[in-house]
């Protein structure tokens, strides 16, 4: 298979999967109410207003009377995919979970189906067009001052839009069962511009940047647990027999954790930015993940989360795959 074809086929498969209607007139709450009423879903996972106006909170809705809590706006940052998995794990077999999905969350759901982690009929995807979400921890000089966690947040004007959203090419989920509202317009420009900019730095400066970022890490694993693609029942850093990794928050250990995790999500990461937004100390993980995404795109013509059936890049072999590193 030629690389271009592989990519093209994926996108076609994605488009074909848009089987259900594009219900622009349906409100989010109306859609959720209907899904519960018609028993098309046993519960709805979406967002509700959080404790601070800057961040929405994942919400699990079981009854029609609670659907009015649902919101969707640019504070809806967390990926809901880990919450879907949690809910399914806790529920009876046969439970169907409806989930509000931005473009990135939709891609993560698709990728999980492609990887055999989720069955397509376990989820009802309520697609929403996303204009980008704010990174509530992005510390603009004003936003981080006590008492100034504004209850309404302007997007790029105040510099609080997530890095991943600034380079997002898939603001709408590639696969959905029902779509609410208007689709969002995809951004244009080079999504890897940030990577290119970073690569202009001398190797020593790049390493210094990583060291500085990773020195902030406290090994809380918020990045991993908020990640829609980190679904291992036992993470490599939690294995004890044998124990592969040191547990300290000192640099060699934190560096290894992040590097191995980045490699483990290669060809699977959908660049939703949930990891960066989850980090309590603002470690910028997205750049590394984006560089790996670029590598996978160039080598295998693969973009994660566009096709329900395409074999994941690192789980597939093609004779055309570049292998110049093998002598």
């Amino acid at each position: 298979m030629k690389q271009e074809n592989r990519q093209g086929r994926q996108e076609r498969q994605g488009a074909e999967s848009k089987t259900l209607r594009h219900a622009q007139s349906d409100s989010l709450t109306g859609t959720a109410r209907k899904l519960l009423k018609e028993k098309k879903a046993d519960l709805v996972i979406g967002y509700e207003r959080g404790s601070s106006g800057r961040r929405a909170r994942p919400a699990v809705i079981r009854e029609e009377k609670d659907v009015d809590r649902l919101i969707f706006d640019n504070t809806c940052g967390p990926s809901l995919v880990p919450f879907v998995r949690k809910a399914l794990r806790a529920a009876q077999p046969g439970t169907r979970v409806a989930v509000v999905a931005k473009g990135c969350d939709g891609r993560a759901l698709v990728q999980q189906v492609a990887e055999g982690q989720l069955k397509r009929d376990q989820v009802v995807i309520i697609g929403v067009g996303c204009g980008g979400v704010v990174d509530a921890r992005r510390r603009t000089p004003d936003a981080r001052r006590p008492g100034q966690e504004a209850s309404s947040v302007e997007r790029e004007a105040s510099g609080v839009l997530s890095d991943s959203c600034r380079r997002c090419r898939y603001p709408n989920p590639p696969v959905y069962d029902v779509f609410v509202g208007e689709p969002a317009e995809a951004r244009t420009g080079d999504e890897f511009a940030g990577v290119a900019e970073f690569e202009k730095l001398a190797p020593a400066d790049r390493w210094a940047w990583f060291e500085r970022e990773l020195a902030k890490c406290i090994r809380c694993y918020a990045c991993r647990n908020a990640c829609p693609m980190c679904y291992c029942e036992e993470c490599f850093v939690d294995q004890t027999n044998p124990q592969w990794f040191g547990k300290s928050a000192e640099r060699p250990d934190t560096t290894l954790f992040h590097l191995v995790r980045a490699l483990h999500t290669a060809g699977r990461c959908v660049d939703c930015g949930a990891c960066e937004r989850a980090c309590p100390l603002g470690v910028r993980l997205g750049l590394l993940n984006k560089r790996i995404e670029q590598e996978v795109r160039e080598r295998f013509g693969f973009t994660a989360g566009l096709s329900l059936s395409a074999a994941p890049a690192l789980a597939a072999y093609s004779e055309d795959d570049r292998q110049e590193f093998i002598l």
Partner: protein
Amino acid sequence: MSSSLRIAKQDMDQLVSALTSRYRLFGPVDVDGATVLREVKSADELALDAALDGPVKAAFFPQTEMLLSYDGTTSEPPPGRDKPTAVLGVRPCDARSLLLLDKVFGTGKYRDSLWQRRHDDSLIIGLGCGTPLETCFCNSMNLGPFDSQGSDIMLTDIGDAFLAESCTDKGERFLKAAYKSQVQRPSQADLDKAGQVRGKALESLAPAADFSGVKAALATLWDSALWDEVALGCLSCGACAYLCPTCHCFDVQDETAPGTRQGRRVRIWDTCQSALFTKEASGHNPRLSAKERIRQRVMHKFSYFVDNFGEAACVGCGRCIRMCPADFDVRLVLQKVKEAGKPGKAKDARRAG
């Protein structure tokens, strides 16, 4: 007795150098937008106007701390301290957290020599909280944004200067030694300004919640379905525990260099939200899911710690809310606990599992 003085912000270097000559000084430092506690050498490193993201406990209970080093036949304790520790810019919630941790490590039934080594003779310079955050609830935990408990000296930001007031003899002695006769006394206008700042802070806090019935309610809720619901909103990461100023659980690890018998034994912060926290050598895990783990966290803070030390292990700093990737809000959980609690049905849940 207690003295007060005016320290112009441009003269903070004098305070910092007086501190660093006598103490190993820690303070809030901005690292690319995150405010974390770091060792400080000069005043221009300090970020005193932002809420500290990392917890103050790290000055006395570092995340990774060597207990001993070994070479296979003998072991060595870690090197002793050369100076006592001082922390500058400690918010009242964090100052109180150090008092709670001292009950665990310093003065209780079991004394932790590493804690004592760092904590004994330490100097805490508090900083009143002029602009509390939306996530702050110190007033619900019997505390206020200008409480001086746990601080030796208390600073109040009055614009171009800090009003510094000694709260303990130790604080008084330090100020006297540091400033000798060059003390600038605050004017009446300074004192009025400080009063306004305090008043405004109290006004901006949300009304205090009444969590008084929480412990009694928890005793009836061991098997409650409440925990299933609460657990659905938790990602089981360790952000809350590691950023919590009172969480103090740790793991002990031996790190031996490959192919040798040389290494070190370290203790590292641990969190009850991790599955590994209770995983036994057999593979059995008594806290199988997020439900048991989040219940443990709430029970430990608001029930067991009260049994052991007479008060809750929470100071209302709100980091666990502000820093949670899922916007999990412990205030809402405590409210639900109060509502779901069934008085009269208490049983001793403590050892039940």
